[in-house]
Every structure is written in C-alpha cells, then in structure tokens.
C-alpha cells in the first residue's frame, strides 16, 4: 500500500557561513568549510535541501591541559604537549575544523599573555591547513586582551572568534569586523537571548553570514533535552523565516560530555557501567549525534575515536535514500 509522507513547506533557510580563507581569498587555509543552507529540519532529505554536511571541530588547547581526563590525554599522547602537533594529529584523526581553546594560564603556570596566545594561534595555522576557531577563556577582560591581537595577527583568515556573549561581544565583534573574521555567539539555552544577541551583533554591522550561534547544551543525561528543545525551536523559527535565528549552530559536545561522571570517573562506579574508555567515548558520540539531529552544524569533540564514529554517523544521516 502506498504511503504518502506528509511534508512541511518552509519559507526560510539557514544562512550559509564559510569558515577559513584560502590564499586566493586572502588567507592561508588549504580548504574552507561551508555550513548551513538547509531548507528543512535536520536530515529530512525528502522535504528540502541540505547542501552542506554538518562538520566536526576538534578541540585542542594552547598547552597540555591539567583539567582534562587522562583518557583524552593518553589518546592524544605527546601531541597534546604542543598545539601545533595537536592540530596536526587532530587533522589526521579526521577533523574538519580545529578549535583552539586558550587556557587562562600558560604552560608555565603564569597567566596567559596576548603574545603567547598569538604565538599558539599562528603555530596552529602553520601546522594545519584546516579552518580555525579560537575560543578565549571566557573572562570578559582577558578574552578581549587575547582576541584583539589574535584577530589582528591573523587578518583575513576568516577565523571564528569566541566567545561573544551578551555581556561581552562588542570588542570581539569589532575585532572580527576589522580583520575579516567571524564570531561565535553564545547564550545560555534560551531562545529569546540567542535571538537578542544575534540582533545586537547584526546592529554592529557584522554581516550575519559571519556569525554562528552557540545555544549551549548539556551532555546526555545532563540537560541535553533542554538544549535539544532550544535548538529545535531556533531552527523551526529560522525555517519559518525569522532572519535573526537563521544562523548555523555550534555545540560543544565534547566539553559537555567530559564533565559528566560517566565519562570522567573510572573507579567506584557500578560494574554494569562497563569499560570506562568505551563508556566515555559512547557518551561523547551519543551526545554529539543527538545534537546533530537537533540541528547542530558544528559539533566540537575531544576524543580521537569519537571523531571517526561521529563522522560515520554523519555519513549515514546524509545519505539520501533512493526514491520509492
């Protein structure tokens, strides 16, 4: 019996955003990554077009982090000692993008300086041809001190600068505007605040095809359903034509996962929880895939094995079933 699949008709589309610039475009990237453009909800291939696959950014840190699980550090090995080596390893592991997180202390334990942040950023750009996201520690004053010189030293690279938040976006947006970069706009799981920040950033004159939004989320078991609902609502609004919600979304699935007890703790947990490493990677992969299905265009991951597994999931989700 033939079954007719009901289809929604949408009037809006997610904006296309291109991260990175090749030499011809004023940068030094080997490739660029374009996300967005969808005219339907995630992976509803029968209903609209999804011109660009969701992509995987791999998080690296400007020096070997002392607050990361040793499961992660063991997996990356010596590469984690040096951001350039780490970026190369991430690229080999299958990253589409590199996300460089700047820790507020440097390798020597002293507060990070703008000079060392610029050095680390440039080292990563030289080591890998992938487009880059640079996220500062998340403290307004320090973030501005670091991101402005980074933006200037890498002018034209179309780096994504983060994190623009409602209390601290002006300086970061101005730095992106002046140096041909992009920004990531983060709000705390709230559709109204997400939209408001997009309006404020747009008001500063940064074209919205240089903005991605990070609606924040929680890991599996830690509020992912709230994050899911917010992302779904933003995406529905985008497809209904609300211009200020039509930005691609980034979520930090790895960061959220590696805060959870299930990923972090190997001892003193019920035996039924099984092998620690396998569980932690499963947690990151399941979190990331759920977020892809709620509309994420970029998932930021931490474990090398998660990269391959999420990539395989994206391959399957993007396979358009043959008609009939």
């Amino acid at each position: 019996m033939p079954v007719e699949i009901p289809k929604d008709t949408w009037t809006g589309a997610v904006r296309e955003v291109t991260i990175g610039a090749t030499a011809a475009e004023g940068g030094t990237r080997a490739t660029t990554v374009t996300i967005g453009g969808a005219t339907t909800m995630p992976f509803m291939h029968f209903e609209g077009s999804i011109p660009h696959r969701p992509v995987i950014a791999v998080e690296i840190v400007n020096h070997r982090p002392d607050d990361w699980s040793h499961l992660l550090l063991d997996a990356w090995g010596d590469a984690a000692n040096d951001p350039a080596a780490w970026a190369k390893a991430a690229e080999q592991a299958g990253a589409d993008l590199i996300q460089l997180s700047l820790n507020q202390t440097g390798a020597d334990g002293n507060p990070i300086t703008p000079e060392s942040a610029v050095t680390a950023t440039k080292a990563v750009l030289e080591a890998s041809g992938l487009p880059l996201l640079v996220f500062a520690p998340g403290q307004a004053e320090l973030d501005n001190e670091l991101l402005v010189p980074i933006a200037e030293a890498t002018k034209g690279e179309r780096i994504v600068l983060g994190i623009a938040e409602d209390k601290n976006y002006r300086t970061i947006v101005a730095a992106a505007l002046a140096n041909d970069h992009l920004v990531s706009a983060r709000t705390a799981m709230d559709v109204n605040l997400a939209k408001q920040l997009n309006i404020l950033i747009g008001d500063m004159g940064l074209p919205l095809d240089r903005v991605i939004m990070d609606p924040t989320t929680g890991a599996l078991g830690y509020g992912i359903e709230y994050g899911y609902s917010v992302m779904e609502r933003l995406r529905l609004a985008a497809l209904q034509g609300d211009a200020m919600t039509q930005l691609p979304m980034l979520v930090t699935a790895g960061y959220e996962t590696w805060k959870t007890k299930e990923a972090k703790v190997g001892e003193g947990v019920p035996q039924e929880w099984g092998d620690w490493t396998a569980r932690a990677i499963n947690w990151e992969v399941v979190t990331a895939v759920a977020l892809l299905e709620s509309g994420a265009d970029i998932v930021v991951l931490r474990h090398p094995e998660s990269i391959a597994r999420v990539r395989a999931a994206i391959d399957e989700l993007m396979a358009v079933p043959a008609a009939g």
Partner: protein
Amino acid sequence: MYIIGENIHIISEKVKIALAERDAKFFQDLAVRQVEAGAQALDLNLGPRKKDGEEVFPWMVEIVEAVVDVPLSFDSTNLAGIEAGLKKVTKAQPIINSTSAEPERLEKVPLVAKQYNSRLVALTMGKSGIPVGADERVTIAIEQLIPRALEIDFPVSDLIIDPLVLTVSGCQEYCPELIEAVRTLQVAWDPPPPISVGLSNVSNAVPRENRPLINRVYGAMLMGAGLQMMIADPMDDDLKNVIRIIEQRDASTPVGRLYLTLHDRIAAMEELTPDDVDMSDPEQAAIWKTVQILLNRVIYADSYLQQ
C-alpha cells in the same frame, strides 16, 4: 472596560518606602489619582506581610476609604491579613485577589470571601502550576473553581476567573493560549463568570520602553476575545486611548483603524495580515511586530522592534 488600578503595588520602590513609613498621604494621593484616571476598583498589593498584615491591611483600608469610594482588591497570600482588612471595609463590595485551585487555598479562601460578602479572583492554576494550553486552564475553572463556589453557595457572578497572563519574555507560548482561554471561558459556563487578567504581566522582564506598547496591543487582542475587566495601569493614557478607540469604534486615525482591525480579527478567530498594515508607518509596523510575538509567530527578543 472595567479597570482595577494596579499602581499600589509593593514592587514599586516608592510604594515600598511609603508603606514602611506609613505615609497615608502618598497612598491617598495614588488612590485618588487612579480613580480620577478611570479606575473602577483599586488593587492593593502589599506583599505577604507575614509579620504585620493584620495591622497594615486595616490601616490601608481606612486611609484609602477616606478618599475614594471604589471597591478595594486585597492582593495577597496572607489570608489573616486580608480578613483583618475585610472587617474594616465600609464602602463598596471588596475583592479578594486571589485563590487558586491548589487544594488548601481553594478550601479556605472562598469561605472567607463568602463570610465577608467579597468578590473573589480565582486563578486557573492547580498544584502542578499554570498549564500552557487554553483548554487545560478552562478545565481548571469549570471542574474546580466554579464547582467549589457552587459547593459553598458562593455566587458565580462574584467569582472572577483569572486565566493568568504570563510574560512574552520567556513564556511566549502562553500568550496566544491566554487569548483563547479568555474566549472559551465565556462559553464554558452559563451564565459566564466574570473574567479578569493582570495585563501588564505580559511585559514583565521586557525593557521598560517597550512595555506600554506590548500591554496595549495585547489589551486590544484580549478585548477581541471578549475581555471586559483587567488589572492595569489606569494612568497609562495610550492604553486607555486604545480601549476608547475599540469601545467607541473610533476609526478616525490610521493607527486607530489598525487597532480596530486587530480587535475584529481576534473576535472572528482570524489573524491580522500584512495587508492590514501600512508598514511605512513606524507605529503600525511596531504594532504588527508586537502582534507577531504575542501570537508566538516570531521569537521574542528584547530588540524585537529593531529586527
């Protein structure tokens, strides 16, 4: 439109100070000004007053009744304080604001209202909170609030159902449902109970400069659904002008015509369309944008008018 003046409200810093100083002159002045501005009753929201409610409420009744004759609405959760105030009332039939369908409140508060021949505001809120859907809110009214009134022989004409306005900033999905709850309540019981809402709640947590516009657009929409009573600011001249335009069907200005169209569309269970609006007129465009957020068609943001 029957307006219960909202301005004696403990959220206001001036009210808070005047109350602490027992500044009778301040409250008498605020009462007189609201009544002169058209308030037909006065809400007295003095907070829970756990410690001194039984002293503060009678004092307030005495000083306010010395200067105005309108009904006083006791807006508090402190039933003993309310009762002390009710004993002091000598003029118009007072109002208790409010009970809800939470078992303990619904048990006690209507009995006090009956004892003192007070009207009673009843919120469509049960112990699990405020339902989003219009139908669920109406169900609370007809299955819990009205039956309780009947049970104790309290006149349904004195039971004022408040289906609860929530803010467009954070509870946006409630806004269109409230309009439908107001509409449905009028046919859910025969004769229909009076219905009232706290209008300005719709713009709680909205930047101050945008609040009056949201209030009056929502007011026009609720009038379209049949609302005839609200707790509101009687000194908001723009709000009162919209109410006047609708009541007198004054189509003499373009903006007035738009408010009438908005009202009529809601009354007909239709929606305003872009063709109804002259988008080149900033005032009309702002009304259009406000309707879109209040119907939950466009996500609210503080800068929604700039979009």
